[in-house]
Each structure stands twice: as C-alpha cells, then as structure tokens.
C-alpha cells in the first residue's frame, strides 16, 4: 500500500520560506496570491495491506521521526 504524509508547520509558527514564496509570486505578477505556507510531503511504499495497521504505523513514524511536533503537525493519507 502507498501512503502520503504531510508535515507542515503548526499554525502560529512563523514560516519565512512560505512568506518568501508568496512575496516572490506577487513580484512575478501573481497578485491574487495571499498567504503561502510550505511544508513537506513524504510518499512511502508500505508492505502492509491492513489500513488500520498502516495508519497506526505511520502515526508512530511521524511521532518518532517524520515530524517534530514542537513546531510541526502532520496528516496521513492512505492511497490504496
């Protein structure tokens, strides 16, 4: 099974990179762009067929390594 994990900065944590992207987009003439935030996406192949187990495993991976929960939050998406 495949999974996708999103790791993004928590609300309230400043994201200078996102801000710079927004600024650059505005500068390039994309005037409609408002706030921009950047995060990470991690695509994983899992040798696991049980969705429940996969989710639990992914959660453990996020807590242990993939996200730093002091500043980041994560979402998990299973892709069949």
């Amino acid at each position, binding site marked *: 099974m495949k999974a996708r994990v999103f790791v993004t900065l928590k609300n309230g944590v400043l994201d200078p*990179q996102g801000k*710079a*992207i927004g600024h*650059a987009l505005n*500068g390039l003439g994309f005037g409609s762009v408002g706030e921009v935030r950047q995060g990470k996406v991690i695509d994983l192949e899992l040798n696991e067929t049980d969705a429940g187990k996969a989710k639990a495993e992914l959660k453990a991976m996020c807590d242990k390594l993939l996200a730093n929960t002091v500043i980041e939050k994560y979402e998990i998406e299973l892709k069949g």
Partner: protein
Amino acid sequence: MTAITPEMVKDHGLSESEYQKILDLMGRTPTLVELGVFSVMWSEHCSYKSTRAHLKKLPTKAPWVLQGPGENAGVIDIGDGDAAIFKMESHNHPSFIEPYQGAATGVGGIMRDVFTMGARPIAMMNALRFGEPSHPKTRHLVSGVVSGIGGYGNCMGVPTVGGEVNFHKSYNGNILVNAMCVGLAKADNIFYSAAKGAGNPVVYIGSKTGRDGIHGATMASAEFDDASEEKRPTVQVGDPFTEKLLLEACLELMATDAIIAIQDMGAAGLTSSSAEMGDKGGSGIELDLDKVPQREANMTAYEMMLSESQERMLAVLKPGREAEAEAIFKKWELDFAVIGVTTDTRRLVVKHKAEVVADMPITALSDEAPVYERPYQPREPKGGDVSFDKSKSVLASLKAILAAPDMASRRWIWEQYDNSVMNDTVQHPGGDAAVVRVHGSSKALAITTDVTPRYAKADPYQGGAQAVAESYRNITAVGGTPLAVTDNLNYGNPQKPEIMWEIVAGIDGIGAACRALDYPVIGGNCSLYNETNGEGILPTPAIGGVGLLKDVTKMATVAFKRQGDVVIVIGETKGHLGQSIYLREIEGREDGPAPRVDPALEKKHGDFVRGLIEQSRVDTCHDVSDGGLLVAVAEMAIGGGIGASIGVAGLPEPIPFWFGEDQARYVIAAPFEEADRIIEEARAAYISVAALGKTGGDRLVLEDSNSVSIAALKAAHEGWFPNFMSGEEIPMTN
C-alpha cells in the same frame, strides 16, 4: 541487436568521418553500447580533441611536481613528506539548466577527483561568471549556484575559502561555474588510476546507478540554443551525505594496501573510468553489468555504461582483499560490488545478461580518439581608443567603481559558505589569496583563482598570461611562494577559427607566463562550446594557483593595521587604461588594448615583496589588479577601517595614474623606518618604487585636498551585492 543508422550516429555527436574511423578500428559495425561508449569517449569533454595538440605545449614539470596533467588531479610536494593535490573543473551547462544541482554536483565531482588520489580535501574555491545583472535570469542563477555550492561543500565539511565572480552579457545564456578543490595527502601514499595487472578484481563503490544524466558528457560538448533549454536531459541530483561517507570510506580503505588503482566515475561514469583505468594500466577490463548496484528496474547495458549517477568510484584491488574492502564500505553503509576483473587483452569487454554487449580495443577509446588541428584565424589584438573625460572627479569615480558589479564585495556569497570548518582557515575570503594551514603544522597553502576575461577578449595571449600573473601576485601578496596551477579553459565553439585562435593564443600566453615564473601547470579542464545562439562567451581561461607559506604566522593581509604606516607602491605605474574597469564603468566603454604582462618583471617584483613578508618586515600587502592603484589602496583602508592620506607631487594625469591597470604592482604598508629601508633596497635593485603617503584617520584623502570617508567607501563596496540580490527569488533548497 539494434542496427546503427546514420541518425543514431549523428545523435551521438559523431561526425561521418569519426564513424568511419570507428568502423575501421572495430572491423565491424559497432553495437549500440559500443557506439555509446565511443560517443562519450570521443566527445570533446573526454578526449580533448580540439585542444590536446595545444595543451602539450604547457610547461608541466618542476622538481616539486609529483604528478602533472593526466591523472585525476595534479600533485605537488610541499615538504615534510606532505603533498598538495588539486584540480579545477567546470560544470557550466548543468548549472545553467538547474543552478542548485548543477553547481552542487560540480563541487561533488571535483572533490572526488581529489580524494580518489588519496587526499583529504581541505579547501574549495569557485570561479563564477554570470550574465549582466539586469538580465532576467541572472539573480536566479546567482542564487541557485551559490546555494548549490554551499549546500554541497558545507555538508562535506570542507571550507569554501574563495573564488571570483564576474558579470558580463556574454554569459547571459551560458554561465560558468568552475570549482576547484585542494587536498592534502602524504607524498608516499598517493593513489593512481592505472589498473595494472591481470586477474585483479574490479570493484564498484558508492551510490547505486540510476538513469542520471545519460549523455551528459556529450551534452557538455554541444552548443546551446533556445530549444535545448526545452529538451534538456535530466540533470543529476547531488547527495553530499553519501559523498561524505564515500570520502571517509575511501580514505579508510586507502590506509590499507589493498588498492591497485582507483578512480572516480565522473562524466561518462562507468565507461570512462573503466576505459581510462585499463588504458593507463596497459591492461584489459571485463565488466559484468548484472553485478552493478542499480537504483532502477530494467536498466539496459547502454544506460548503465553511460549513466552519470554521482558519488560512485571504481577501484582495482589486490586479489583476495575484497572482503576487507567490503567490510569498510558496509560499515559506512555504501554499496560495494565486485563487477569485473582486469585482463591482459587490452580490451574493454562488457557483459550483460550473459551476453557480450561490447568488446572493443581500449586504445581505440584513448590513443586512437580523434585529435584535430582545427584551423584558427588570428585577429589583431584590440587597439583603439582610450580617451577619457579629464574633468571627472577621481574620488567620485572611486566610489562608483567600488560599487560596480565586478568590483563590489562578495561577502553576500562567501557568508553562505562555511569557510572555517576544519579549523585551519587562516585567511578567510576577502583577501588576495585564501590561506589554509596544513593541519598540525605551521605551514600553510595559499590558494587563488584568477582570470580577467575582458583582457582575454581584447588579446587572448595577454589575457592568458595575465591570469597566471595575477594568480602569482595574489599568492605572493599573502607571503606565499607560488608552486603550481590548474587551469579551466572556458571558450566558445572551437570549430570557429576565430575562437580556436582565442584558445591557441590563450594557451600560449598561459604557457609563456608559467614557464617564466616557474609555475607549472599540473592539471586542468577544457570547457568549449560555451555559446548561446552563436555568440561566444568572453574567453575565460581561469587559473587556480597554489602556493606555500613556510611559516603561517608571517602571513600578510590586505587590511591597514596601524596609523602612520607609509603606503608604498612597488612596480611602475604608466597609466594603462585600455580594457580597464575605469573605462568600462566610468566611460561606459570596453575599449583599448589589454595591459601587457612582463613575466620577468612579475618575478622580480614578486620575489622582492615575498622576501619582505617572509622576513616579517611587511604584514600589509595587496596586489594591484582590477581598478588600479587607488582601488587597491581603498580596499586596504576598508579592510582595516583606517584611512590614508596619499598623493603624488606633480601628477600630469591623475585618472590614468590612479585607475590604470598596469601589471606587476603591489601596494604595501610599513612603519616609517622600515619603509625607508624598503624604498632604498628597491631602488638598489632597480625596482620601481614610490611612497604614496601615510595611513591614518578615517578618511581617504587625495592630494591633501579632496577626501571621502572610509565608511562611505565601505558602504558602497559592501552594499551592491545584497542590494542586487534583495530582489531575489527564494533559494530553492529542500
């Protein structure tokens, strides 16, 4: 088996006559794999077919040269059993397409060239040329290249200690990214690439092979046009983490005596490394591609032979030492595989899925590679108009020049490079040459890269000679004895006679200067076809120089250090304004002849100045280059935060005097009594010398009348780069 069509031959960048030569050498139609192998081995990048005949004329020997051109890097003896190993290489085309990864993999590649010889890299330099600042791509390219160089070098833990940067419209569509690596080894433990002997295991180490940059080597030799930006092949992605592990693992293996030969897989990966190792060793090589660690499924033999995946090495071990080597690479979590064996057939034989997919004489790939005596057409060196408006203010011009794109401080760049890791950087970027201590000793290497492309355009011969002379001066100015150089010859399309002449004359100029200065060329790299839509770049023969300071505590720096020092210029100032920064920045013209280099005078003045530094009589020194005398003095004042009052009685023409770019000059500063003695000694040696004035205060005062504050000069000098880049896009790292 795939039949070879004329289109395929053409797609491989081979001419009809080259293909005919292949047919003759093989005695049959080549397989597709063989055609691919020929195409990369006979490419300009690997075979130097346009330049080989001329490069032979360069002086390459001196008693201290342990290895000249022909190996992965050159080696010089620096005493006490120590050797310095260095090389410079271009990554121009990939960096234009993907500036971050292109520059990063350029750094990775040159580091491998140096550590494959047994050296630990201790310093990196980068010589960069970008298009005009106003060109829409320039900022993006500067940003990407600089963060790519930093990204790779910083992660490797090797300090990036200097370089050079120019902006010129001739690079608008073809930037230059030349990286230099300097390493240290023990003179009796240097590793070469000659795969001597038969029956020895050929091992693959490092990263897995993927479909990266297939045909990169041929791309690096093909001209750019607008369309190629679209159909560009994949650029490699660098993995500095793996390279760092590879470095440590290789050095660990090198501490044993298991290695017969080793070489990095650079351009044309497995093909060129195996062919070159077999060629140098006078042996044959048999490879079994099924054993090659592969990153992707279903890779073909063609793809594996031509892949340019990074962070890989090929080695030949003594028989029976495989397990020992494997244990080291496993410890560093790197791939390791025995993929072949040396033979006595002098043939490169490649097997894949139990089939022989290539079987070719190795000499056909090396000795028999085409060499061209391309026709060249001399152009009169540029003469012409050096008139100027005599009413312009000298100090206002100085301020403008200090803030010009080619002259402004490069701090914005070097602060993105870790320039002090390894704890041996004694002179950081910003001086004439970087100085890096030989770890655990009191001696140090002085390192610099130089070329003034506008001179080389006006007069390719003088431009080549001047690059060498400037590098000699930069090393001398810190107190180093110049020992040897590596070159990076960046030119346009050699099939155009006027460009071929730029190349030939440039090499002649370099050769003449190196010979006269006892400053041999121990390695180099050619990057040709640097053109966009038929317009060549300025000829850019970059010179990377290395010198030795026996006692690093005697090193000189640019900055003024005391109030009341006498400011002295060594060398004659005639006021040569041709091709000067002054003419370009203030008068708006790139005009006139390039300054002439007199190597004998360079040597004489250099020896004199170096002697003063070595005797601890002078600790403040700057060579005079771009911008001329007044710019040199201003840089010394800015560096020390100390002003000066200078002038020369009865100057008929202040502008050429202060801004002329005559060669073979240095500015030094010394306390009064010492200065007196120095002037006397110079006169006695028939060296042109003049006292310009005294350090002191916080302003630069000219002829007792006009003055400007050092703070204002500093603001102008430091301001341009950050201001220019503040409109920057976000650096695209992770």
